[in-house]
């Protein structure tokens, strides 16, 4: 018995677990100290959770694209952050036109729908072309090559947008109906955060049921299980891969508009940080796994929002919000130490890895 365990657990594993346990202990220590300190009331924590949910649901939407592409192609589509950027950047010109003509104030719902439509179709169009031009010719190449192409495509798209629209940022117009807040006694919700969370939840549910319920979704899942067998079963593999990219692009475009409505700035480099975060979220949830990506995104958003106050305040660290990203990535390390496949990741057998 002991012999068996010794065979499976290497010294590296032990050291990693030790580090993990130390970090976990520090986090718990910090949390207890913060809560005992009593700086934050229940309303503050509530606010933190809502902020985290809003940010996290955007990460979740972007992470969908990463995880689905990984599922079918076993590659990280690093250009996905530019797919995310392209939608809201293009839609900005519509938004600005609606704003200056006054239509945005008179018909806000219609305008928002057009903005979403433009952003989502641009993003999915770019994702489709990306797969067609940059990835499909390299389908049979070793796995490192599409990865490098992805990085190249990412730079190409960034600088095309920079060349087309300039290197400064553009300010998204304010949509009046999304401003303000709802109050429930002492608790309050900012309107657009509720909208962002609801819209993201709706989209995530729609995507999930599309993958799980429809025939196309089933075919995509079959391709991600095993390309050859799927092909033998009469599934058009190329088309399913294209569809995957288009769906990822749709989610990214919608996430982009939500992001732009929340932060009201777009520029050519805006995809980089959310892209990295969403990729982290996808790994956190178990890459290749769709509910995992959603969960990972929301988890990451919550950690970024709550983490610095909860873990670091009690430890007496000054200016903890500077360490927001450090906390997010520490959480990634922690999760990967204890669950190398991510929160919901399945144990990958030889055939997939």
């Amino acid at each position, binding site marked *: 018995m002991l012999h068996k365990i010794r065979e499976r657990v290497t010294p590296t594993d032990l050291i990693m677990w030790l580090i993990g346990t130390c970090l976990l202990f520090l986090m718990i220590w910090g949390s207890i100290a913060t809560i005992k300190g009593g*700086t*934050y009331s229940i*309303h*503050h924590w509530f*606010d*933190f959770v809502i*902020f*985290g949910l809003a*940010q996290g649901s955007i990460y979740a939407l972007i992470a969908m694209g990463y995880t689905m592409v990984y599922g079918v192609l076993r590659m990280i589509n690093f250009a996905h952050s530019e797919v995310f950027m392209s939608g809201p950047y293009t839609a900005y010109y519509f938004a600005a036109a609606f704003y200056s003509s006054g239509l945005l104030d008179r018909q806000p719902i219609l305008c928002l729908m057009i903005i979403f439509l433009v952003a989502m179709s641009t993003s999915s169009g770019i994702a489709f072309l990306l797969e067609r031009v940059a990835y499909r010719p390299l389908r049979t190449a070793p796995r490192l090559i599409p990865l490098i192409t992805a990085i190249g495509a990412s730079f190409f798209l960034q600088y095309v947008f920079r060349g087309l629209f300039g*290197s*400064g*940022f*553009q*300010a998204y117009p*304010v949509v009046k109906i999304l401003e303000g*807040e709802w109050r429930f006694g002492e608790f*309050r919700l*900012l309107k657009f955060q509720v909208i962002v969370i609801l819209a993201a939840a709706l989209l995530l549910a729609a995507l999930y049921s599309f993958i799980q319920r429809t025939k196309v979704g089933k075919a995509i899942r079959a391709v991600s299980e095993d390309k050859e067998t799927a092909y033998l079963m009469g599934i058009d593999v190329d088309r399913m891969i294209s569809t995957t990219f288009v769906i990822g692009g749709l989610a990214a475009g919608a996430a982009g508009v939500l*992001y732009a409505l*929340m*932060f*009201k*700035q777009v*520029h050519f*480099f805006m995809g980089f*940080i959310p892209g990295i975060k969403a990729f982290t979220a996808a790994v956190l949830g178990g890459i290749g796994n769709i509910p995992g990506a959603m969960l990972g995104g929301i988890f990451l958003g919550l950690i*970024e*929002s*709550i983490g*610095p*106050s909860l873990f670091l*305040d009690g430890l007496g660290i*000054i*200016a*903890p*919000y*500077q360490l*927001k*990203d450090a906390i997010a990535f520490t959480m990634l390390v922690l999760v990967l130490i204890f669950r190398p496949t991510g929160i919901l990741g399945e144990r990958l057998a030889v055939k997939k890895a």
Partner: protein
Amino acid sequence: MKRISILLLILGILGSFILADAQQQAKPTAFKYEDPIGVVKIKKGDPIHIACWFVIAGPDASLGIDTKRGVEIAVDDKGGKLLGHPIKLSFQDSGCNAEGGQAAATKLAADPTIVAAIGSNCSSEAKPGVPILWKAGIPTVSPSNTAPYLTDPNRGPEYDGYLRTCHNDKVQGAVAAQFAWTQLKVKKAATIHDGSVYAEQLAKVFAETFKKLGGTITAQEAVAPTDTDMRPVLTKIATGKPEFIYYPIFIAAGGHITRQAKEIKGLEKVALMGADGIFSPDFYKAAGEAAIGMYHSSPDFSAFAEGYKSFLEKHQKKYGEKPLAPFHAHAYDAAMMVFAAIEKVAKRAPDGTLYIGRKALRDALYATKNFKGLTGTLSCDKYGDCADPKIAVYKTTAENVKNLVMPDKPFWKPY
């Protein structure tokens, strides 16, 4: 075959040595101009190369473009010529971060034709960049680095080639604290910086002065310049119930804080104040209507010298708009200071070649006294602080935000 090629290679190397030696011997001995660091030789008709390292791309480009225009107008005012040589300007983007500053400085240092540099814009660029330039013997005059560290007595000899025409933030931070204490009569304030040299030191000076005046600092927070969601950090700040938030940071993050602060419970009535880094129409674009009523500390344009008016006219004529940030006049002065110093030290050889000693140029820049510039009378101290600092506080109105122009009348002056 291989042997022959190796033989040829060796012969070639030897040959080049002999040639180089011969060239050195052919040098005219009649004219002598020596400098401990090096001499820039400019042949007859060749341009005098001045390099600028500014933020000319990205979200903070308005700062770089503003200073770039100041330098260009200075060159125009000189008629594009210095000592009979045309002035060549080159621009290098420095990105408003340490990496960008380092990259730009490394590029400039590799070019031996550069006589002097103007820049950088952001203090975080100057910190790694200036030592690289000075190692190559290039002195640099900054129009907009305001961090105290750069002209601190303890800064080290690698910053010997550094001067600036803008104020030191020891002045600016103190003005902001005095304004909050005496004019707004607030007792509790919070600061936010973004980890940049500029913001961190400015926030520190503000906090120190404010505490000395008797106020309480409830939080000294920090964000990353790429952060977008400021609500959590603002919520944390709100727990200290400040009446005033000072965030001397840059445009992208500054815009997010301004927009999001009023959404936070407990911060609805808080007074917001930024510094000269976000005193720009681009900031109004980023912050939108949330910027109405906020304060900025910035150089006092109304105290500038007579020539400033005609400068503005030239600016309007050349670029068709008002200045984009507060440092165009400082850039103009920096360029003029560099030109004056070159005129002072340059020597012409009999064959018409112009010799400029690098150490001599640096010393001439440091020796600048009572130099009449647009921003006032510049006199450099032994650490390179040349400014005649007049800092005022401005208040943003709805009109400013609507038309995307900065307020031109100070709201309050400490003098």
